[in-house]
């Protein structure tokens, strides 16, 4: 990829894989909501993908890639819970600060965008097939 001009299928396909990465990070965040650790550094932090436009001057089209996955959001919350088996010697645990509402909204948006790209691909496919049938 990169040295060849983009096709409309690559534009939508790469956008779909980017949305899939976003969906995976959202799933990881939701799965780790409320998990505790015995230190601030060991606690789970929300992860988010960073999207970057990939321009292609030859075809005049642009697709999207995931540049990196970064940790974002609030710091883990310190809580005094000496009965917890994960507590340190002072009796503190660190709970991951995952904003579940935000993650669910992200999940819905990601699913909708994915669906839009599928639709684009289907339309493009049927138009290309019709063009090939020209004159028959």
């Amino acid at each position, binding site marked *: 990829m990169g040295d060849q001009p983009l096709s409309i299928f690559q534009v*939508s396909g790469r956008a779909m894989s980017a949305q899939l990465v976003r969906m995976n990070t959202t799933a990881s965040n939701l799965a780790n909501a409320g998990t505790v650790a015995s230190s601030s550094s060991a606690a789970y932090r929300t992860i988010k993908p960073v999207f970057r436009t990939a321009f292609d001057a030859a075809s005049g089209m642009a697709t*999207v890639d995931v540049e990196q996955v970064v940790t974002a959001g609030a710091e883990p919350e310190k809580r005094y819970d000496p009965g917890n088996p994960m507590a340190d010697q002072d009796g503190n645990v660190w709970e991951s600060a995952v904003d579940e509402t935000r993650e669910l909204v992200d999940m819905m*948006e990601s699913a909708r965008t994915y669906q839009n790209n599928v639709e*684009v691909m289907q*339309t493009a496919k049927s*138009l290309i097939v019709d063009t090939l049938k020209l004159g028959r």
Partner: protein
Amino acid sequence: MTDSLFGVHGAALSVRSQRMGVLASNIANASTPGYKAKDIDFRAALASADAPGGSIDGAIDAATLYRVPVQSSADGNTVELTTEQTAFAENAVAYQTTLSFLNGRIGQISRALKGE
């Protein structure tokens, strides 16, 4: 640029397919911060492709403009899905229409050649 057999439809098909790519790019970048949506002014592109000495590539480049968003978003992205989806659907139908015109013309020519 106008073809004697197929008229303006060949150029129209090129512009329509290029526009489909541009609109697909917008939809692909619906959640990329800072992405600026573009669109091709079909009428302008076709008019300058059809002008004497005009080329399709040059006409498309000149008619590709940044979209002005109805309501700007905080992350600098100017893709508005309703606008893009409407434009994409309209463009797909217009492409299909051009194909029908071309099919009709091809039928006409082949009937003329066969002497039917």
